[in-house]
């Protein structure tokens, strides 16, 4: 077979394998990135995970409760300040979170500018569409809310090791069994990710012929099937390993938390901020501050 065609067809038949592989690698890298930042010596890293979970999640809820842009943007700014104080690289944050949210939600929000009924603000020349004040406000609501909440929730995982997040969840009255399942799920995501990666890498090196759509779907479904079978075997082995060390269905865990004075201080700080933001968010008159009409 001619060399160029074989290279060409390999690229073609391999697209879904390649894409999946890239996706798998990226997920692992992202997790490693998070673990590195969680070990940095920043403001949020020093706080008790329970305080962080309660504080940051309350702020997320506050953002969704706000009925004016000023409050949403203020909490967003607070998130950025917290990120800087916690040594989260802002460039990474901008690339990974802000830009991707802006592209996704921004694209969704564009038509809103034109189709929302309200006071005309601007008429686009040539096509003659009209942007309304309400349309613009609504698009800003959506994008700013998404940016603010995404920043706050990513701060939580970037500045807290996953094991602490898990233990902290228990203060939100998430049942122990659920917390244990979450922890084990996260653990086995990495094992299964690795298995999947090995499988796809082996697949990539073997895919030389041209595959038609049917064969490609066959391979994709087969890969999932192999992974499912392996997962089933894995769960059985894990089950035995747990039993072997005395597991009988109920899980017991150690709680290793101590609230320091700075944690109480931080908790009070979060309470004040959340209280202020909730109050501010209910002031519809504030809309005039940023009302663009």
């Amino acid at each position, binding site marked *: 077979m001619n060399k160029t065609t074989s290279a060409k067809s390999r690229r073609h038949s391999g697209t879904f394998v390649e894409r999946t592989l890239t996706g798998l690698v990226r*997920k692992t890298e992202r997790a490693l990135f998070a673990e590195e930042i969680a070990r940095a010596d920043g403001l949020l890293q020093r706080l008790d995970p329970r305080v962080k979970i309660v504080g940051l999640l309350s702020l997320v809820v506050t953002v969704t409760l706000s009925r004016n842009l000023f409050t949403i943007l203020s909490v967003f700014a607070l998130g950025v300040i917290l990120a800087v104080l916690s040594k989260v690289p802002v460039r990474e944050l901008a690339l990974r979170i802000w830009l991707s949210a802006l592209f996704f939600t921004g694209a969704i929000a564009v038509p809103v500018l034109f189709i929302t009924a309200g006071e005309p603000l601007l008429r686009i020349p040539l096509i003659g569409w009209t942007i309304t004040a309400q349309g613009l406000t609504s698009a800003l609501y959506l994008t700013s809310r998404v940016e603010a909440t995404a920043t706050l929730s990513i701060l939580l995982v970037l500045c807290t090791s996953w094991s602490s997040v898990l233990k902290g969840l228990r203060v939100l009255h998430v049942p122990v069994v659920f917390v244990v399942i979450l922890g084990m799920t996260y653990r086995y995501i990495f094992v299964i990710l690795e298995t999947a990666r090995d499988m796809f890498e082996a697949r990539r090196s073997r895919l030389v012929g041209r595959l038609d759509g049917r064969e490609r779907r066959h391979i994709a479904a087969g890969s999932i099937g192999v*992974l499912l079978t392996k997962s*089933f075997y894995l769960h059985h082995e894990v089950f035995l390993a747990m039993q072997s060390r005395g597991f009988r269905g109920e899980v017991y865990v150690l709680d290793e938390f101590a609230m320091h004075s700075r944690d109480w201080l931080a908790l009070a700080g979060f309470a004040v901020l959340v209280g202020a933001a909730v109050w501010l968010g209910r002031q519809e008159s504030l809309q005039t501050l940023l009302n663009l009409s």
Partner: protein
Amino acid sequence: MHIPDGYLSPETCAVLYAAAAPFWVVALRRIKRLLNTRMVPLLSVFAAFSFVIMMFNIPLPGGTTGHAIGVGIAAVVLGPWGSMLAISVALLIQALFFGDGGITAFGANSFNMAIVGSLVATAVYRVVGRGAEITATRRVAAAGLAGYAAINAAAFLASIEFGIQPLLFHDASGAPLYAPYPLAIAIPAMMIGHLTIAGIAELIAAGGVVAYLQRSNPSLLKFTAPDAPELDSTRVRTPRSMRPLWIGLAALMILTPLGLLAAGTAWGEWSANDLADPAAREHITTVSQGQAPPSAPPEGLARLSEIWTAPIPDYAPAFLSSPAVGYVLSAMFGSGLVILVTTFVGWLFGRRREKLTTTTPIE
């Protein structure tokens, strides 16, 4: 499909958390009773599995790829209760750790994809696969359709959740506070993508995995198919074909909208006229459990309903002018068009490659 934070109002999120909670509790109890000590490792590993396969690119007819949620597979292997827990856990880790899907919207995402998705998938799999042998081709079709129906049911719910936001939540100036598109836009916008790309990815994943397990590990399929007759290994089986699946899919595309029409104005499909008509308002109030809709139709909705009914001539029967028809038609046109185009493009490229390989000399 993973709804981020900020798209739904806190009230909607709270309602959907409340709606999901009893399912979680019941599922946890049932699975605990069924699996006993095995529950924790089984759910953990399957949630991890679901998480990983959500990242798989599934090749679709025509050369594109799409992602599957894996709810069809989970429901077929674990049954509805295990499936809803495993998918919920996978969604929670995505939300908490990887920022896919919101934290306040976790209840909504779980309700749509994990809970309703698992129930719909189970129902379809049981009905279509009823009484079939474990290795029957009909089970492949049943699983594929189960995945397809589940993902579309979930997308439909999500689109309703989006669509009611501008009706219910706006600020003093009338600007929508959350997802800004009314039902007439939200439903077709969500459904076109899911009836085609996402739905078919889910269909291929679920059907393909069942076909794979039939060959390599049929015992994994027995858990959700206790009614399957014992295997007759002496019978020679004809090679499997995906054709029944595609026929079933086509039937589903046609029947779903017909069902909606037969049921009258589907829930959530309130036209601007309905909001003004007192009888219809009362009907909406009952179906939305006592919460009265705003009395004046939002201007945007009134205008938008026209977009979808505009091409229908005035002399057509009256029911054709409703927004429900508009969305059904656009969804059908949209999905049909995408399939046609992708198939044509795939066929075109396929032919060109064929030529290329046959004319190049073989060394």
